[in-house]
C-alpha cells in the first residue's frame, strides 16, 4: 500500500533528532511504498539525493522563514478567506467557541486548495485586522494583558507560518492521483504542524492517519514558548493554536502510538481515546551492540547528558561528594556538552568548592555512547525530568547497572532493573550509588537484567511489526475508493489489488468510511460531525 510519511525537521542529519527512525521504518517494510513529506526549516534541505532507496519520493515544504511570494487573492475570495480565518481565530481566543477550530481549519484548507493564495492572505493587512478585531472582543481570553499592535504583527506572522502546510501542493484530487489524496494512509511522525496535511487529507479524501510521537510536540511547545521573547497574548494565542491542533489531531487520528506510557498520559489529557492508543517504544539499533567490556579498575560513576540545569549535574556533584566521603577511591566522569552557557564553569566551580575536583572529570562529548558507558562502573542519571527514554535505554543496553532519579519515563524504562531515587535528594542518590559500587554481584545482576529488559523493549523489529499490523488493520477499515470504486479524476487506472481482502469484506457492512468497528468506530466518540460524512459530500459543503 502507499504510505505517506509526514514529519518535520532536519531529518537527514544523522547526528540530530530522530536520526534514522523513519528510514528504519521504511526499510523494514519494503512491501509498502513510502513517500516522505517533509516540513523543513527556513530553507529546503534538498534531501532528494541523500535519501535512502526505501523511499519512493520526497516532497519538501519550507515551514519557517520567509514567506514564498504568491499573488494576493481577489476581493471576493478575500472575504471568504477572512470569514474562515475569523472562525479559526475565534476558536483560539474565545473560550466558548473552541469547537469551531476544525471547521475553520478545513474551510481555510479548502479555499487554499482552490486557488493557492492562502499564504498571501495570511500575510496581508486584512488578516491582521481580522485577528486584531477578534482578539479585542470582550470575553477574549488573552490571559491577562490586552494585545498591542506589536502583538498583532507577531501573532499574525507566527500563525501564517504555522498554517503554511494548508497551502502545500500535496493534496491531489483523490484516489488514483498523486499526493496525499492518492495515499492509502498517512503516518505522522512528531505531531504539530506535520499533522496538518494529514488532517486535511483525511477531511478531503478520507485518508486515515497514524500519529507517532516520541516526545510530545505540545509539551515541547509549552516549554519552548516559556522562554520565547513574546508577550503573553502572543504566547496564549500560539499555545491555544497548538493545543487545539493537538486535540483535533488526537480526535481524528485512527491510531496513536506514543513513545512511552508517560507520553500517553499527556495524550489522554488532550483528548486521546485510550482505545486507539498503543504505546510503541522507540526502537534503537544500539540493541545489536555487544555489552560493554570489563569494568574499569577504579570504581567510577559515569554521568551523561547535556550540561544544563534541567539535567541537574549539580545534584550529581553533591551526591558524589558524599560518595567519595564513603569510598575515597571513587571517580566521576561527566560526559556531555554545555547546553546552557556558563553551566560547565558553574559545575567546575561547584566541584572545586566541594573539594572533589580531583576525582571529577569533565570529558566532553564521547566518541560514542558505548565508550561513555564502558568508562564507568555504574551509570547515573540525576535529571529533573526525563521526557524521552533513549539515553536511559542506551545506558541499560550497555549492561551497566543504572541509578536514576524517579522522574518522567525513568520508572517505566528502568523498572525493577535499576535503582530509582527521588529527584533533588543527594543523600538518596549517593546511597544508591554507594550500594551498587560496593556490591559487585548486585550490579552485575541488575546490569544484565537491564540489558535484557532494554533489548526486549527497544528492539527495532517489534516496532516494525507493530506498524505492519497497524497499517493492515487501518486499510482494512477504510475504503480504497471513497468516490465509489472508479479511478481517480486523473485517468489513472484503479488498482484493485492495492487493498487486502479484509477491506473488501469489511466494506460490505459499512455505510461510510467511519462507521465500522475497531479503531475507526471509536472515532465517533470524538464527536466531530464533519468527519462522519462522506468526503464527496464534504467537498461540496465547504
Amino acid at each position, binding site marked *: 500500500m502507499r504510505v505517506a510519511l509526514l514529519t518535520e*525537521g*532536519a531529518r537527514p542529519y544523522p*547526528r*540530530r*533528532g*530522530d536520526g534514522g527512525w523513519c528510514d528504519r521504518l521504511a526499510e523494514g517494510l519494503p512491501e509498502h511504498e513510502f513517500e516522505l513529506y517533509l516540513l523543513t*526549516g527556513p530553507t529546503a534541505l534538498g534531501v532528494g539525493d541523500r535519501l535512502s532507496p526505501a523511499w519512493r519520493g520526497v516532497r519538501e515544504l519550507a515551514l*519557517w*522563514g*520567509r*514567506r514564498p511570494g504568491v499573488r494576493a487573492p481577489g476581493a471576493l475570495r478575500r472575504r471568504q478567506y477572512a470569514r474562515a480565518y475569523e472562525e479559526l481565530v475565534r476558536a483560539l481566543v474565545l473560550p466558548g467557541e473552541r469547537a469551531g477550530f476544525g471547521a475553520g481549519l478545513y474551510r481555510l484548507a479548502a479555499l487554499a486548495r482552490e486557488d493557492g493564495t492562502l499564504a498571501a492572505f495570511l500575510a496581508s*493587512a486584512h488578516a*491582521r485586522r481580522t485577528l*486584531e478585531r477578534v482578539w*479585542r472582543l470582550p470575553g477574549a481570553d488573552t*490571559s*491577562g494583558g490586552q494585545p*498591542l*499592535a*506589536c502583538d*498583532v*504583527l*507577531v501573532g499574525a*506572522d*507566527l500563525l501564517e*507560518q*504555522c498554517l503554511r502546510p494548508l497551502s502545500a501542493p500535496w493534496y491531489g484530487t483523490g484516489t488514483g492521483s498523486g499526493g496525499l489524496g492518492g495515499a492509502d494512509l498517512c503516518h505522522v511522525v512528531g505531531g504539530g504542524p506535520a499533522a496538518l496535511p494529514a488532517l486535511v487529507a483525511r477531511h478531503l479524501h478520507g485518508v486515515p492517519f497514524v500519529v507517532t510521537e516520541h516526545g510530545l*510536540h*505540545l*509539551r515541547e511547545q*509549552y*516549554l*519552548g*514558548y*516559556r522562554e*520565547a521573547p513574546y508577550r503573553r497574548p502572543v*504566547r*496564549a494565542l500560539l*499555545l*491555544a493554536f497548538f493545543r487545539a491542533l493537538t486535540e483535533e489531531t488526537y480526535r481524528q487520528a485512527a491510531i496513536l502510538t506514543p513513545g512511552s506510557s508517560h507520553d500517553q498520559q499527556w495524550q489522554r489529557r488532550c483528548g486521546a481515546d485510550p482505545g486507539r492508543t498503543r504505546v510503541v517504544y522507540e526502537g534503537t539499533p544500539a540493541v545489536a551492540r555487544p555489552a560493554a567490556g570489563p569494568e574499569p579498575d577504579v570504581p567510577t560513576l559515569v554521568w551523561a*547528558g*547535556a*550540561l544544563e540545569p534541567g539535567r*541537574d549535574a549539580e545534584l550529581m556533584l553533591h551526591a558524589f561528594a558524599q560518595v567519595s566521603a564513603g569510598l575515597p577511591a571513587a571517580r566521576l566522569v561527566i560526559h*556531555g*556538552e*554545555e*547546553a546552557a552557557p556558563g553551566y560547565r564553569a558553574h559545575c567546575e566551580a561547584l566541584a572545586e568548592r566541594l573539594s572533589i575536583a580531583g576525582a571529577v572529570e569533565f570529558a566532553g*562529548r564521547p566518541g560514542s555512547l558505548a565508550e561513555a558507558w564502558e568508562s564507568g562502573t555504574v551509570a547515573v542519571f540525576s535529571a*529533573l*525530568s526525563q521526557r*524521552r527514554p*533513549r539515553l536511559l535505554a542506551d545506558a541499560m543496553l550497555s549492561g551497566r547497572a543504572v541509578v536514576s532519579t*524517579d*522522574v518522567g519515563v525513568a520508572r517505566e524504562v528502568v523498572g525493577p532493573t535499576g535503582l530509582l*531515587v*527521588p*529527584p*533533588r535528594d543527594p543523600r*538518596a542518590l549517593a546511597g544508591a550509588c554507594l550500594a551498587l559500587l560496593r556490591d559487585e554481584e548486585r550490579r552485575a545482576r541488575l546490569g544484565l537484567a537491564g540489558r535484557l529488559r532494554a533489548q526486549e523493549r527497544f528492539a527495532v523489529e517489534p516496532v516494525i511489526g507493530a506498524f505492519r499490523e497497524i497499517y493492515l488493520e487501518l486499510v482494512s477499515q477504510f475504503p480504497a475508493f471513497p468516490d465509489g470504486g472508479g479511478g481517480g479524476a486523473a485517468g489513472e487506472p484503479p488498482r484493485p489489488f492495492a487493498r487486502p481482502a479484509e477491506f473488501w469484506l469489511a466494506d460490505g457492512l459499512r455505510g461510510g468510511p467511519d462507521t465500522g468497528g475497531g479503531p475507526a468506530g471509536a472515532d465517533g466518540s470524538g464527536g466531530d460531525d464533519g468527519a462522519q460524512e462522506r468526503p464527496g459530500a464534504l467537498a461540496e459543503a465547504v
Partner: protein
Amino acid sequence: MSGGGTAAGSPGRPSGDPVREVMAEHRALCERAVDPLEIAAGLEEAGLGAEAAARCRHADLFSLAEELYARVPRRPTPPPTARDRQCGAAARATLTAAALAVLPCAAVAGLGARWPVLLAAAVPLALTPALTAEPPAGPVRPPFASPGAADELGAERSAQRGTGTRWRPAALAHGVGLAVLLLLPTAVAGGDRPLTVAMVLAAAVSAGSAERAARWYRQVGRGHLGAAATLAEFRARMRPVLPVAVALHLAVLTVLTFAALAVLTVVAPRPGPGHGGGLLHLAAERAGAVHWAAQGVLGLLLVLPLLLARCGRWTAAATGALAGPAAALALLGLGRSGPVAGLLGGGAVAVVLFGYACAVLGRAEAHR
C-alpha cells in the same frame, strides 16, 4: 521514596496546605502561565511527578496544575522593555554615510569631472546604502523546540537565525541612484561651478543626517509599535512622524548649505562690484532661489529612498533613487539648465515618493 521532608526542599515542618508550598515555590511559573497544561509541563520539568501530586491530594499532575492555575492570579505583563538605543551604532552609521558620500564628491570636485574619476567616485557611493544598513532581522521565528533541536548530549543547538543579507541587488541599485544624484550636478555644472561644488558637498555631508533621520524614524516606529493598542492607533501616532523626520533632515541640510556658502563667500567672493551687507547676507545671496529649491529637492531625494529602504521597501527605494536623477537627466536633454532640471524633474519624483512613503511607512508592518 516519598519522604515529606525531602520533597522539593520544603521545610521539615508539615504544613496544612501542601499546595501552598508548591505554589510558593513555583509562583513565577504559575503567574506567567497561559494554560494549566503549561504549569503541568513546568512542574514536570522541575522534577515533580505523581508523588508530588499525591502529596497535594490530587490524582495526577494535571489536576494539581489546574488548581494552581485557578489559585494564582495572572500578574499583568510588564510593559515591553525599550530596546537599548544603540547610540553608538547610529553615530557610527551617520559618520560612515557622511564620509562615504563626501570623499568621492570632494575628489570629483578637486580632480575635475572626468570619466575615470567619476567612475571611481561612484563605487563607494554605490556601496553606501548597503554598508550603513542594519543587518536585517529576518522574519519572526517560533522558538525552535521541535523534537530533535538538541540531542541528549547537548549537541550544537543550531543557531538558525534566519537573517538575510544586506547585500541585496536593490541596495546596490539604490547606491547607484545615490551616486548619480550626487555626482551629476558636478559633472554637468555650467556657469558657476564653485557654487555647485559647494552645494553638492553640503548635500553629501547631509547624507549622514539622512541616515540619522531614517534611524530615528525607525526607532520612533518601534517605540509606538510597543505602545499603541491597535493598528489604527499606531497609524494615527505615526502620521506626523514622517514629515518631522523629513523636516529635520531638510533643516540640517539648510544649515550645512548655508555654512558651505559662507565658506565659499570667504574663499571665492562673487566677482563683480562689491556688495553691501555682512557675511551672512552675502552667503544667503550667493545662491538664487532656484538653487535653494533644487538643493531642497536633492535633500528630499536623499532622505526619502533611505527611509523606504530602512523600513524594508528596498525595491521602492531603488526605484525612487534611480528615478530622480533620470527625470533630471531627461529634462537636461530637453535643454533646461542644471538647477531647473533638477528642481522640476527631481521635484516631481520627490513629490510622488513622499506620497508613497506617507502611505506605506505609516503601516505597522514597515516597523516590525
